[in-house]
């Protein structure tokens, strides 16, 4: 059941990402809905769901630009790993904290993917200042909405086990 709900969330986020990329990307900058969803599931979901969903979200970006196939998947998986471990120490239900987390996660994922380029693509992958500065902001703005959506699809965390 969890798998089906996560699959539905994934399809929805992919569709949203596609639509945003096609219609709402001023200057090539667009909100990374899939990254926000990966962050949300890492906060809300179980261990396998958190990492598997992040992996699949990364794989979408790898599929769209397969120059370094697997790079985004690895960056997203490690990002989910980090979030999953700190989620009990922070208070994520409020939108400001969700926005801060999404911004930090997008900086981490982008930086890690760029650094992977040194090993696998022969050089640091630099996407420009506009992308590097405004994408985390866009992700932060979209984060509360994606968290709300993820809360509908992903199973809520067991609070008794969080403390």
């Amino acid at each position: 059941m969890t798998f089906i709900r996560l699959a539905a969330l994934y399809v929805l986020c992919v569709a949203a990402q596609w639509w945003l990329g096609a219609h709402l990307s001023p200057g090539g900058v667009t909100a990374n809905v899939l990254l926000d969803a990966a962050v949300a599931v890492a906060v809300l979901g179980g261990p396998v769901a958190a990492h598997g969903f992040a992996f699949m979200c990364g794989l979408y970006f790898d599929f769209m630009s397969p120059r370094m196939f697997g790079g985004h998947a690895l960056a997203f998986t490690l990002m989910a790993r980090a979030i999953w471990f700190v989620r009990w120490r922070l208070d994520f239900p409020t939108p400001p904290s969700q926005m801060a987390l999404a911004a930090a996660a997008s900086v981490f994922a982008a930086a890690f993917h760029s650094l992977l380029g040194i090993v696998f693509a022969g050089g640091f992958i630099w996407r420009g200042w506009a992308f590097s500065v405004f994408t985390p902001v866009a992700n932060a703005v979209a984060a509360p909405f994606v968290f709300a959506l993820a809360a509908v699809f992903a199973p809520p965390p067991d609070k008794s086990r969080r403390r």
Partner: protein
Amino acid sequence: MHKEKQHATIAAAVFSALSLLFLLLPSSPVVNSAKAALAFSLLPFVSAGHSAAEITAGAPRNIAALINAEEENRALRLRQKDADITAAQLEAALETNRRLAAETGLSASEKWRGVWARVMERDPAHWNSSFLVDRGASSGVQPHDPVLGVQDGRAGIVGKVVEVWRDSAKVLLATDEMFSAVCYVEGRNWDALAEGRGRAELRLNYLPSDANVEKGAKVFTSRSSVVFPQGILAGTIIGVHQAGSFQTFTSADLRLAVRPEAAKEVFIMSRNRPPAPAEQGAAK
């Protein structure tokens, strides 16, 4: 709690290992192929809105070739539609021509009928002389049938059939010394004889001595030609030799519109000629 952490560690390790495996393996061509195939087959609006080059960027050559073939096919279908419209216009023009010819008592132009044939053998010893094609008597090919080729979108003479077997025929090329065809220069009334010389250019002989022929003028087959119907492009004049004390007529060098050595496929026209007297006698 401890078990959940263990699961998280295992999940992270598995998915990270999988990602690294993708990174290490040469997976980009496979992914590009899958992406191109998906964009092309599952999302036809994507393939219609983008050029094949955009869809196949990074895809292996065989996948790119498949998708390029589809784009070419689309373009050819459009050209086919244009050709159908042109053919309909030509048919109407031919009908008018037939009607006017009937009223004035002139013979009307024939409709071009025939078969396409592939060049299957060239004789190195007679390169400018002849070649064999893969159509013969079984396809209705007869001796003296005109042979045309297409180059740069225009049809032009290539030669004529001289020998016919069941499934093949020998074509005497326009460049052969034995070849000749009555032609006229565009915009002039007089006929001249285009003769092969065993090399790439033909000689257009028997032009009137006062013929003011210029380089670049187009030459077409004349109605007086025994082999060719009127109006088929023969070639372009590339040099003029004026009549002098030892030559009573003007001649010109003619470059063929369709180079026989470049022809891979040719159109063998079948003309409804009246049977020769000997054939009529045999029929009786």
